[in-house]
């Protein structure tokens, strides 16, 4: 008898938890940057096409796979996948759906702890008299353990532990008593804070509070469509990648959440509602905050430069300074709202990352919920500490690359093939439509079987052999030089090794060699984690065999 008797409290709670799982930092920090770098307003065309052809089908696949597995008492992907096809290897492929969540949580909770810390710093006014350079330096000091920005010793570790403890405590309260309650509070607050900041983003006037541009300049910069970009594979791949990461598909958390539903209850409409809620937060709110505000105060050229390193720098190194252009009170309030909304976006996602591991332990090893939650907290702490201690040595990026990028695509490819080709599209469509409150258009039979797996395969292949600087035109014309971010170059550390060879300064060389060591070390940790979960799945499978449950 499983110790797992979790359930959702209400349908709205489930949808908010699913939407909260999808809404993350990327909605506010990644999407607008991707849009300005890939055709401006025209980016929305491939983006929405990918949402309809890849995002929604994957949501339906994951919701229905989860609910199907839940029927047999399975709530984590190793055994959920195995319920769709009896061949043993599926459950080992399902390990991705537990491993990814733990590995992503290890660095994601650290990122989440930054937002918690920045809420605190906004409240106590740490940013009020700092210049733009000083605020950028504040962030550098924060991630560098040798300097404390608040007087708290080892401040990043302190906030990381607080953040993890909070996640663990909520998880220990269960789905309806913890996760769902946080989603019901966090999602409305996130939208409220987002609407306030979007309003500010829309009402900047040049000459007021130090602004050099009206909001319209930033909005023009973001939304003016460059239709020529639609012919570039880079733009389509960026759109597909953004859809992938924004919906949290390919992780195993959606399947886990859906596994606590009964087969007569709707998934088709609920998945659509949660998916579109994420799109609202990303497209409407996400596009209305950082770019218009940053362009309003810094100008387009500076923003182009800042977005080269992604949205993270803009969000943490620049926005706190810009908020204080509105005065001390509004600056502090806006800081609390901005980092507060990022915190809610983060915690609703990290809670979803905890549930697959907990469900696995509760189903297979009869662990109590509280013990399972604490085991998640401890594992994430152990795995996450290297990202805190060796942040400047690329450990954080390494985790993000393998578990937060490559693994999602691989697992989504596995499950889409399993669902459409092995389980069978006829049974699959029946499963999606079972208990449905809306009729899923029949065209999705074709899309799920052919288009979605093809899209995912293209995303994977493009990551495998990404051409230098994402220049597909040159690559397709015959001059295919691999970028350092391509899987092939990344796995061999080719870029890093070339930097070491080219380094002339002894200190730089030593630093790069240390980075190489930490990169390999972090990969080793990830591999050990994967193998450990695989072993546990093997033990659980044998136990089920012995007890005659399989």
């Amino acid at each position, binding site marked *: 008898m499983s110790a797992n008797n979790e359930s*959702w409290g209400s349908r*709205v709670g489930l949808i908010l938890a699913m939407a909260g799982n999808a809404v993350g930092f990327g909605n506010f920090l990644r999407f607008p940057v991707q849009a300005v770098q890939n055709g401006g307003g025209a980016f929305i065309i491939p983006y929405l096409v990918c949402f309809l052809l890849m995002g929604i089908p994957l949501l339906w696949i994951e919701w229905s796979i989860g609910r199907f597995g839940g029927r047999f008492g399975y709530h984590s992907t190793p055994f959920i996948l195995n319920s769709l096809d009896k061949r043993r290897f599926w459950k080992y492929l399902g390990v991705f759906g537990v491993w990814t969540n733990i590995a992503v949580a290890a660095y994601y909770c650290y990122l989440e702890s930054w937002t918690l810390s920045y809420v605190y710093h906004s409240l106590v006014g740490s940013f009020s008299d700092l210049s733009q350079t000083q605020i950028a330096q504040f962030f550098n000091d924060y991630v560098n353990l040798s300097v404390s920005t608040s007087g708290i010793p080892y401040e990043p570790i302190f906030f990381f532990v607080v953040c993890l403890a909070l996640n663990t405590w909520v998880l220990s309260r269960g789905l309806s008593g913890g996760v769902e309650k946080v989603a019901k509070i966090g999602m409305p607050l996130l939208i409220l804070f987002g609407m306030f900041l979007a309003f500010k983003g829309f009402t900047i006037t040049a000459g007021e509070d130090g602004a050099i541009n009206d909001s319209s300049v930033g909005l023009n910069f973001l939304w*003016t*469509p460059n239709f020529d970009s639609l012919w570039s594979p880079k733009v389509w791949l960026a759109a597909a990648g953004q859809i992938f990461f924004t919906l949290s598909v390919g992780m195993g958390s959606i399947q886990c959440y859906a596994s606590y539903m009964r087969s007569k209850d709707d998934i088709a*409409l609920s998945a659509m509602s949660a998916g579109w809620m994420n*799109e609202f937060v990303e497209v*409407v709110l996400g596009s209305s905050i950082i770019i218009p505000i940053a362009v309003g105060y810094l100008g387009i050229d500076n923003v182009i430069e800042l977005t080269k390193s992604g949205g993270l720098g803009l969000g943490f190194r620049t926005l706190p300074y810009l908020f204080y252009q509105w005065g001390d009170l509004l600056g502090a309030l806006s800081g609390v709202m901005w980092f507060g909304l990022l915190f809610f976006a983060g915690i609703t996602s990290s809670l979803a990352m905890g549930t697959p591991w907990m469900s696995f332990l509760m189903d297979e090893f009869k662990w109590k919920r509280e013990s399972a939650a604490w085991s998640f907290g401890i594992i994430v702490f152990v795995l996450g500490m290297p990202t805190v201690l060796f942040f400047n040595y690329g450990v954080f990026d390494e985790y993000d690359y393998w578990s937060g990028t490559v693994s999602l695509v691989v697992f989504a490819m596995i499950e889409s093939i399993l669902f459409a080709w092995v389980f069978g599209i006829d049974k699959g469509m029946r499963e999606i439509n079972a208990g449905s409150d809306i009729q899923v258009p029949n065209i999705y039979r074709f899309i799920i079987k052919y288009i979605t797996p093809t899209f995912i395969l293209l995303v994977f292949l493009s990551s495998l052999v990404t051409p230098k600087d994402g220049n597909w035109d040159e690559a397709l014309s015959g001059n295919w030089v691999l970028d350092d971010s391509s899987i092939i170059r990344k796995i061999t550390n080719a870029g890093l090794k070339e930097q070491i060879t080219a380094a002339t300064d002894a200190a730089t060389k030593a630093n790069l060699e240390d980075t190489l060591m930490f990169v390999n070390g972090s990969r080793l940790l990830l591999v050990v984690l994967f193998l450990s979960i695989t072993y546990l799945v093997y033990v659980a499978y044998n136990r089920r065999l012995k007890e005659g449950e399989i």
Partner: protein
Amino acid sequence: MNTLALSVMLFTMISVTVVTIYFFILVLKTPPRPEPDSYSENDDEPRP
């Protein structure tokens, strides 16, 4: 703001907002299924 950018922005934002609200209202207006369903808040007796 130039007309093209404004049109693309308004069309996108309004469309996404309308579709989001439409699906959420559909969820709210759909009557709950007879018990036992997936949700514990409407249970007559608390779950173990």
